[in-house]
């Protein structure tokens, strides 16, 4: 298996086959929260790709050079990763505010939300403990480039579904929906159909 093909599979698996929103049920709150319009979804997607990549890079370094050598990884990984993410988000927010006001206007309001986006913690944990979320117990260790490709895959999968779903929800506004199903319930029914479609990908790869 060539190197490029392996990276492609890793990316495809992370983004589509094991889609973080529809197959793994992670990060649903921002999903339903911001998907009411296409603009906010785009802003959120860009911010998530950006923060997630940075968070995984820092967490990977922290795990491999600090936590693991000291032997405290097993019980300190939750506090240290989430602290990394929370401070990173606040740091990024300050830097963007100072250096690029237009970017801050586009991304600013989504950044605090990302701290509680479980997808960021999930991707960071998964990149140092592969199989943690799929319970496969793989004794495999991602090298740094693999961890990066994996994280970008997760983030792109998140963005893909978020944007598709937002487009769908904008159309639903005009659709004749039974009275008590208007708003949130119909959005969940739509998500169920989306999820059904994505389950097909898992069958494609025989997972």
């Amino acid at each position, binding site marked *: 298996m060539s190197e490029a093909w392996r990276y492609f599979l890793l990316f495809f698996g992370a983004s589509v086959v094991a889609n973080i929103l529809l197959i793994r*049920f992670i990060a649903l*709150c921002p999903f339903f929260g911001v998907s009411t319009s296409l603009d906010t979804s785009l802003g959120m997607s860009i911010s998530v790709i950006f923060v997630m990549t940075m968070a995984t890079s820092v967490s990977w370094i922290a795990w491999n050079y600090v936590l693991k050598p000291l032997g405290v990884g097993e*019980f300190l990984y939750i506090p240290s990763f989430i602290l990394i993410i929370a401070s990173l988000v606040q740091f990024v927010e300050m830097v963007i505010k100072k250096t690029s006001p237009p970017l801050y206007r586009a991304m600013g309001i989504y950044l605090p939300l990302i701290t509680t*986006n479980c997808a960021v913690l999930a991707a960071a944990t998964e990149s140092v403990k592969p199989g943690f979320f799929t319970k496969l117990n793989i004794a495999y260790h991602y090298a740094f480039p693999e961890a990066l490709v994996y994280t970008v895959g997760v983030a792109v999968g998140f963005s893909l579904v978020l944007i598709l779903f937002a487009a769908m929800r904008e159309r639903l506004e005009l659709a004749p929906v039974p009275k*008590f*199903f208007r708003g949130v319930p119909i959005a969940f029914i739509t998500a*169920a159909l989306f999820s059904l479609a994505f389950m097909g990908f898992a069958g494609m790869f025989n997972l």
Partner: protein
Amino acid sequence: MEERERTLWGELTKGFITTNPLLVLMVGLCSSLAISTRVENCIFMGLAVIFVLTCSNVIISLIRNFIPDQVRIPIYIVVIASFVTIVDLTLKTIPAVYERLGVWIPLIVVNCIILARAEGYASSARVSHALMDGLGIGMGYTSVLLIMSVFRELFGTGKIVLFDKTASDLHIKAVPTILIMFPGAFVTYALLSALLQWYQARKKPGVEEEGP
């Protein structure tokens, strides 16, 4: 929420309907949809969330006057993460349960319910209120979790298994397995949410329904 006299009893009971974390505030969805395939999971998950939520609410309410505003989120997160680690290590002593819930325990840290209550309530409330709020919201979360899991396990697998004993059996062969799979979770939530909208519309006749 409108400003009114805050009573301890009111703080405790509001979590069930008026500010139900799952159905009204729409926070903490991920874990609830993922684990509500079995009633047993939900009991442990509910207890874990009640514990973490109550403890973190109380601690944050105690130290609310000493937290600098700029770094408040990392501080809340550290408080929450410590309690989550306690739960994580405690549940490891019950391997069967930990195996099924494993992933979701560390993810309680980023469960938006807890951070939302810390930021939106405990940081400006008295300790006694924060305690009741934590208990109430936690129980509201657990009750929705139980309703969803009973529905999904009973109709998705045909029976409910509690602690290795069959608690209830429908004796049917062809069950809609889709209910315990991913789409079933969304559909179950949608039905509950529609039920709540119907209930609220009935309670206040004449008020036109508005999307959230």
